[in-house]
């Protein structure tokens, strides 16, 4: 029986390219490239490596987002995924991590219904726009799955049932064993994602990407998904105040620069 993997991915703005509008103090989103979230690319890469070894592995990439997120799913197919599934609906907009995980858990159930179950869900640790790292574990909770986060090394036994991972900690790592089905989240140390292949790009253009609405997913916009159902709300948002520019030390020689700096540090009572 083929091994079935669901990869969770998100299309995110490249936060390196984001600029703040100096007048309105809001994010300038226009012209900011939308990319496949970094950690999610690592999750997909690991799934692809399983498929490299066991070619009958089936990989579905799921995402929740606006219709444009299809582009990212195409990219994932071009990298080697078998299919992409988009959950997209205005009723899903404004979801916090609790509500997002409801929508994605429902998407997983939908895919599982279509494909006859799943063995492994692989997500990225966190997305670079929100940086919460909460959606993976919250989906796992809603799907009743055991989880391992911060996976930096991955190995699956030949019986395709037991997975052994190295889970990163700030001061070392744990070696953990988990049985399928389960949820894992990837960090960048796990691997280096591959590029899209020419064949894959062609493949991607040939594939239909199914889109599920909130009604298709069977989720309730008043109680489970969207802005109103979300337990957390944004109270205020703002840009950090730029820290005032200090003094530039002007001097003829490096020694003089050093001396002036030390005098400056002394005058601030920090040394």
């Amino acid at each position, binding site marked *: 029986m083929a091994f079935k993997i669901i990869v969770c991915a998100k299309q995110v703005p490249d*936060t*390196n390219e*984001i600029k703040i509008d100096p007048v309105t103090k809001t*994010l300038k989103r226009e012209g900011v490239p939308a990319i496949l979230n970094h950690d999610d690319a690592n999750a997909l890469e690991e799934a692809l490596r399983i498929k490299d070894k066991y070619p009958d592995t089936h990989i579905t990439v799921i995402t929740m987002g606006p219709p444009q997120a299809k582009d990212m799913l195409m990219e994932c197919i071009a990298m080697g995924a078998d299919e992409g599934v988009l959950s997209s609906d205005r009723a899903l907009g404004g979801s916090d*991590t*609790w509500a997002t995980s409801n929508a994605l858990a429902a998407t997983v*159930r*939908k895919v*599982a*219904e279509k494909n*006859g*179950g*799943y063995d492994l869900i692989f997500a990225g640790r966190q997305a670079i726009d929100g*940086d919460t790292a*909460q959606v993976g574990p*919250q989906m796992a*909770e809603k*799907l*009743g*799955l055991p*989880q391992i*986060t911060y996976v930096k090394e991955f190995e699956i036994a030949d019986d395709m049932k037991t997975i*052994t991972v190295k889970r*990163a*900690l*700030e001061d*070392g*790592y*744990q070696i953990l*064993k*988990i049985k399928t089905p*389960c949820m894992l989240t990837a960090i960048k140390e796990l691997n280096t994602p591959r590029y899209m292949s020419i064949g894959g790009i062609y493949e991607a253009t040939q594939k239909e990407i199914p889109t599920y609405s909130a009604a298709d997913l069977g989720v309730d916009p008043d*109680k489970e998904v969207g802005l109103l159902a979300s*337990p*957390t*709300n*944004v*109270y205020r*948002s*703002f*840009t*950090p105040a*730029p*820290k005032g*520019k200090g003094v*530039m*030390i002007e001097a003829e020689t*490096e020694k003089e*620069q*050093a*001396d002036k*700096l*030390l*005098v*400056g*540090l*002394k*005058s*601030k009572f*920090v040394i």
Partner: protein
Amino acid sequence: MAIVVLKDKCKGCKLCVKACPFEAIDMDGKLAVINEKCTSCKQCVATCKFDAIEDTDAGKEEEVVDLTAYKHVWVYAEQRAGKLMNVALELIGEGRRLAREISDETKVYAVLVGDKVDQLASECFAYGADGVYLLENDLLKIYNTDGYTKVLTDSIRQYKPEIVIFGATYIGRDLAPRVAARLNTGLTADCTRLDVKVSSYIDYANKNTTLDTSDLDPNSTETGLKQTRPAFGGNLMATIICPRTRPQMSTVRPGVMTKIDRIEGATGEIINAPVELAASDIHVEIVDVVKSAKEIVSLSDAEIICSGGRGLGDPSGFDLIREFAAKVGGVVGSSRAAVDAGWIDHSHQVGQTGTTVKPKIYFACGISGAIQHLAGMQTSDIIVAINKDPDAPIFEVADFGIVGDLYKVIPEIIAEWDKAEELYSESLHHTA
């Protein structure tokens, strides 16, 4: 269990048996029966063609949460191998501040989860805890998601704290989302500022942000938790609230809150919380825990940090940075570019995906000042930037900027360091 099979509707088609990821459905003749392996994943509910399987929790009217039933502030006092994490003590300090702002009766409790961790209680009291909850069991000796989530969730349901805060460590960020999802409450990740009083929030915002606070009422008595965090790589800050559910939960970045000064001999109330846990509750096997032999970098406690970036040019550049740090009594930091280049270990990285620091002096050497780097160091008391590019963005946040080659400037700072006192009094003399 919340999943039930409706006898009159089940046709015995076994679709659900096939669909179940956990082998939790057996057939009793022509009837599907849910067994104890069920995790409530609801795959069968989605799969059944005859609407014969129901989640009895789903239709249930959402309980109206009585917000006033929730009291006190809990701090998850993370310990590893019987040692408290620094961030736990920082959060006890912060939790105490919040508790005092909520009301005179509001207390801050440290929550210790583990096996035989009672000896850590005195440390929690010394750093300001009014009380300590002990959640002990031999299955909790080493952190595991399933066990810790279960006992913590059970205790939160029983004791009903108003606020629960966790350190945003690799473990806190594994545990807190799972707990929040089980409790169906909100969780805000990686906060860098917490407030309860509107007036404190206004003070903070006026001092540190561009937020227009004129529509906020400083006399408001509302004390919901206002959780401020960076988003979009630090380009934007958002303050998040959790108005309808309890507890209000956050994870907080290590290094941003301040411990209170140690109170020698402080004591308080110790509560042994009931713990119900069986080996079968835990689905992940811990094979080994490996502490890395690499030097422990305590960036978040450092008073002085000397950081090097890609501008060092090659890995040996860190020899100069180490020499510099040794001279000034500092700790070595780095940008992500230097880590990615393999010049130095990730544990030295400062920034959004590294450590947040606020030393007295931060030396940024050959670091351009990308927003993700700034996100981790711009609250340092004094920032010194050394960069050959006069237009490098790091100079926008630097208190002292030196345009020059770090390989020429740093050796001079090292050479002159001990003369600082002398140079300073000379400078006073000249201007006097």
